[in-house]
Structure formats: C-alpha cells, structure tokens
C-alpha cells in the first residue's frame, strides 16, 4: 500500500538494477552513440558563448549546446512552455525511453520514478525576466516565461510529455552532484520494490548569473578547461541533460533489453565544512561509503570519472582523497569536464552515462587539453587520447558546493555475472 522502501533489500534479479537506455544532450554529442563517439575522439565542446551577452568579460568561452534541436523529441507539450533546462530534460527523458526500447503503454501501466537533479533550474529564464524587469518594469515580464521557472518542471514536465501519471516525479537541487543523487534515489526505489523503473538524471542550462558568479570567484578558465594540469585555470560553464533508464535486471531480461551496465551501489555524505572548498577527508569517506554499499573492493575499481572541475582547489583535494582511499597506485582517473565543461546539475548524470558507455564499449575517455600533470595531483588522467580498456568496475564522483558529495559505482554487465 504505502510506497515505503521494504525493510530487507533482496539480492536477486528483482533487486539488481541495470541501465538500459540513455538520453543525452551535450556540447559534444546528442544521443548515446554520438556522445560515445565524442568521448572516444576526445571532442571539445568549448567555444565562445553566444547564449547571453558577454560584453565586459575579458574571456567568455563555454560549452554551449548549439544545433541540437531538442524539440524534435518533444511531441506533446508546447515547447514555449518549457524553459531551456526543462526542454533538455524532457527531450532527454523521451530519448532514454526510446533508446531503452520500452513500450510507453507498458511503462504507463507500471509504477515509476522520474528524478532529475539540477544546480540552477531555469536560471536562464530568471536572467531574462530580471533583465526585462530592470529595463522595462515588472509589467513587461512575459507570463509564459514566468510560469516555466519553477525547478520542479524539470521532472514533472517529463512525466507530462510521456503521459506517465503513476510516477514519483521529483527535482533534486543538490547542485553539481545532483545527477548522482537522482541515480541513487532511483536505485534505492527499484531495489526496495517501490517502483518498477526510474528515469534519473540531471539537467541545466547555461546562464549569465552562474557564469558571472564563477567568474567573480576567479574560477573561469580563459580558454579551455585543463583538469589535473599544472597550468589549469578553472572551469568552463556548460549545459545539457543526461537521463538514464533504470530498471531491475529481471525486468530488463524479461523484455530482452540491451544492458549497458549495472548500478552496483552509491554513497552520499556532506562535508559540513565550507560552502565552496571541498574537504579531503569527507570526499574520501564518501568513496568508502559508495564502495561498501556496492560491495566492491578498492583494488577492483578500473576507472574513476573524477568530479575534476579543473580548479586549483578541486583537483588537488580530489586526487589526494583518491590516494587516501586507493593508495599509491589509484585507478586511472579522468575528467569529462575537459570536454563537456561543467554542466552543473547534469554533470554527474552525463558522467554516469559516459562511465556506462565506456564499460560497454571498452574504452577510457581522455582528459583533453592536457599538457603536464600537476605533481600535486599524482594520477594518470589518460591525457588527450582515449585508450582501449576492459572496464569491469567504474566509479563516478560527483561533488558540489555545500560539500554535497554523491558517488555512484557501476559494473560492466556480463551474462548475469558481476
């Protein structure tokens, strides 16, 4: 009756959780196949920002999405009622359902969850509204735009577009690790039997407010993002959405679905230390929580997708935390933000998809724009060129302002074995 989690977690095909479809909007590719190609090729999404006026900034590159036409995946809702981030999230949700090859009518008959993480919600619209207010007064603000700024639209609109009424639709605002939180929420809900499937991920749109905030913190790179590099200068802001279809192994097997990877577990904690400075001990503890939850030993991890923002503070703290957990020879550790920029609430969702695609296709995406690894970082960041690799266990780090850490552990799925 209640949708509470059950007391005991069952360890069988009904409670193992797998990934069977992805929706992707990124500056290096739309859809799982193009995204995988971009990751393998080490494509860069960096270019001059055109989405908002950048006059007055000495440098203004970003990883903007151009020409993606997300409206092609939106059939039922009027696109003008959706903000930029919601447009990405709704289109990615439909893409994930289609990619999973599941019949929408069947999905409607099941109990589901739609959980979307975000940092800024529709701040791009808020930028525009406030700009209008300052220039012309509040009466000039467009009511259609005003109606679409609520962040819960990110998940609810996806439910509306897909006609999924029997869903728990939530938007999670734990900033730049929110995508991993959403995946964790879906994982727990499926494992406990509370839902049959979950569409989980994250979405954000570039906006001037966030760009300016990071700029004023001195953390916007002048040209490109160079994680773990001695000469790294910070982040590039990015945008996009990643939505993952989670379902039980039993459900995926019953319908003969393609299984990209298994979600083995996750961990989350809070630094409770500082708004913007990460805490090494707490980040390390989060990795331990995730590995323990997944039942995975440190030595079994083949790849870490780092939070890897490319700022001075993050990269040193994160790589030291990795050493604390993994010892002197940590697994190869890459930063997708070198290619995608920092897509904020979408970042850990897109990274989780990248991890699954890497395990599925057998390669490690590179950390691009790399010249010389910072001796303080001491990791193999797979510079500039992707490499072929058989990846069995992949760890996806998501860290956020406020010290909100969430880490997801994925496993390659091989004929029923972990």
């Amino acid at each position, binding site marked *: *009756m*209640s*949708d*509470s*989690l*059950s*007391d005991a*977690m069952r360890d069988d095909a009904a409670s193992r959780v797998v990934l069977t479809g992805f929706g992707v909007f990124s500056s290096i590719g739309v859809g799982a196949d193009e995204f995988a190609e971009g990751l393998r090729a080490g494509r860069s999404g960096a270019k001059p920002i055109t989405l908002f006026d950048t006059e*007055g900034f000495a440098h203004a590159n970003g990883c903007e999405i151009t020409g993606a036409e997300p409206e092609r995946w939106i059939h039922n809702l009027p696109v003008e009622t959706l903000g930029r981030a919601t447009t990405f999230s709704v289109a990615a949700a439909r893409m994930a359902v289609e990619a999973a090859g599941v019949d929408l009518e069947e999905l409607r008959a099941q109990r589901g969850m739609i959980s979307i993480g975000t*940092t*800024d919600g529709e*701040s791009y619209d*808020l930028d525009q509204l*406030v*700009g209008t*207010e*300052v*220039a012309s007064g*509040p009466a000039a603000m467009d009511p259609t735009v005003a109606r679409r700024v609520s*962040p*819960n*639209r990110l*998940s*609810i609109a996806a439910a*509306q577009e897909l006609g999924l*009424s029997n*869903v728990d*639709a*939530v*938007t*999670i*605002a*734990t*900033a730049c690790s929110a995508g991993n939180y959403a995946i964790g*929420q879906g994982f*727990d809900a499926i*494992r*406990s039997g*509370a839902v049959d499937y979950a569409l989980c991920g994250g979405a954000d749109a570039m906006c*001037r*407010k966030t760009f*300016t*905030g*990071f700029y004023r*913190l*001195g953390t916007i790179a002048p040209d490109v993002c160079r994680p773990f590099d001695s000469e790294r200068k910070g982040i590039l802001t990015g945008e996009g959405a990643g939505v993952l279809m989670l379902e039980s192994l039993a459900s995926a097997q019953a319908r003969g679905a393609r299984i990209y990877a298994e979600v083995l577990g996750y961990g*989350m*904690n*809070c*630094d*409770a*230390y500082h*708004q*913007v400075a990460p805490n090494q001990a*707490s980040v390390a503890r989060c990795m331990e929580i995730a590995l323990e939850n997944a039942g995975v030993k440190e030595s079994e991890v083949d790849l870490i997708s780092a939070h890897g923002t490319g700022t001075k503070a993050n990269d040193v703290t994160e790589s030291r935390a990795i050493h604390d957990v993994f010892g002197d020879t940590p697994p190869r550790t890459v930063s997708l933000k070198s290619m995608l920029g920092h897509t904020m609430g979408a970042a850990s969702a897109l990274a989780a998809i990248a991890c699954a695609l890497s395990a599925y296709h057998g390669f490690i995406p590179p950390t691009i724009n790399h010249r010389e690894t910072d001796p303080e970082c001491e990791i193999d960041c797979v510079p500039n060129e992707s490499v072929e690799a058989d990846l069995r266990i992949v760890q996806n780090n998501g860290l*956020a*302002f*406020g*010290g*909100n850490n969430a880490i997801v552990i994925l496993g390659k799925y091989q004929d029923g074995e972990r």
Partner: protein
Amino acid sequence: MSIFVTGVGVALPGADTAAALAAAVSPVGSVDPAAVLGKKGLRYKDRATQLGLVAGLRVLTDAGLWRDGVLNVDGNRVAVLVSSNLGNVDTACRVARTIADEGTRGLSPMDTPNASSNIIASEVAIRFGLHGPNLMVCNGPGSGLDALRWGAALLRSGRADQAVVIGVEPDNEIVRELVGGPVADGGAALVLERSEAAEARGATVHAEIGGHVRVAGPAAGYERLAAGEPAPLTGWFASGAAAEVLPAELPGHDLSAIWGELSGALGLVQAAAAIGGFAAGARGPVCLVAGSDDDDGSAALVLRPPAPAAPRPAAV
C-alpha cells in the same frame, strides 16, 4: 521497522513550539534568527537559510541530539533534507539585477554559493556538523512531504540513523511577486529515526510515519492512504483547493489560511501542527495532503500518534 518522529522544531512568527503552532490563530511578529542563534555567522546568509538554521537548532534540541552546543550522536550518520521552493530566489534575482544594473564587478563573490539552491541544507550541515546524506528538495507544493518521504527512505535503506527534515520559506518582495501574496516567513522541522534507534537512545516519540504516496491529485492520494491505514483516519491537513476535495465530515486544517503561502514548508508545518495536536490529546491517525488538482502533483502522508506508553512492570 517503523519510522518514528523523535524531534519537532517550529520557527513561525509567534509560534516556536508544536503546541504553540497547534493553538495559533494568526502570525504574531516575526522570527528573529539572531535572538535564537546569536549574531555570529549570520551576516552573509539569506533569510531562508537563517530560518532553516533556527528550525534546525530547535528540532535537534527537541530530539535530544544537540545539548550545550554539541551533537551527541555520530554526525556521519545524520542526514539533512530541506524543502524550500522559494528559498534563495531573492538572492538569485538580486544577483541577476546587480549584474544588469552595475555589471559583473558589482557582484560579491560571497553571493555565488548563496545563489545555489542547496544553500540551506549545506549551511545546516556545516553549523551542526551533520555529515550524512544532504539534500534540498524543491519540488512544488508536495515538496515538504516529499522530503519526509525521502528521509524515511534513507533510514529504511540504512543510509542514515537520523534524518533532520526541514521546511522553510522566506517572505520578501520577490517571493510575494512570484506567489501573488504574503509568504509564511518561517517553517518547521522534524527528526525521523528508525524505531530501534529511537528506543536504543531512549528518545521521546512524538509520532509515527504511516503510509505515504505521490499521485496526480489529493483525493486519490487520500483515498489510497485511508484504504491502507489499519485505523480510521481522524482528520486531515490540506490547503486551498486540495481541502475542498477531502472528506468534509472529518476535521480539516488549512494552515495556509493562518500563515500565508507555506509552499515548501507546508508538509513540515502540517506535521508539526499534527504533533502539537497529538500532544494535546488528539487520538488517531491524520492525513497530511499537499498539492491540489491545479498543481503539477500531490503528495500525501499519514502521521500516527505515538503508541500509548506500555505499563511499566513494577520494580522487583
């Protein structure tokens, strides 16, 4: 495994306990965070964060988890969930306005974290040393009940031992423009705990979490929970259009009519008021409902009064 409410905190104008909330008929004055928390460290925090810290201090104190400025359980195992829909929208708008008016140089770097929507939850964690799972829920009218539901899920899946669940909303010019009227300048908070953990530390039980659900409309949610609850429901809490579709024969409580728009704080304020009612002698489970047919979705949750204390065996 049962989930108990072992702490309740209230931060509303003129009501700083569950009993005062249950008895209140109108807001009086305003919550003064500096008087509760001391002035130190409040300067760069927005109103919603300050209100969240007040509710947090009160709920942790009430639960017996915070004494004399010290947390007396393992902070690594305490989760924080905060519901607020309007939260820092004033900061976000002010930042955008500053950029438009003065250019980027007008913007203080101190504003960047404050413009991130998880600011309240992370500040609560920092102030009280709560290192467990930490999240903000900005999920529309059902947000407060969603935070409670998720807090219970974190406890059931063993990811935390205590969950501090807070719902707050600030009142200011910007949020009034957005919602079209005054906003309750405050909120409420609960501590949730697994029954075994609560009993092990001898915690006072204020209530038990019953069934809960998120559905398209309030009537459907109420009916599903009523059908699944072992004892008959004895009342409900709902606001606005949601109240109109719930059983008229049972006592109903519309707290937004008293406090103004509660938004993300609604579910928590409803729960705290229900607990105030239990303490005053109300018996039987009540249903909390948030979100009407006009909204994007609706959440509902049953709160049960604590079981009557079992007769203690005579000492031998």
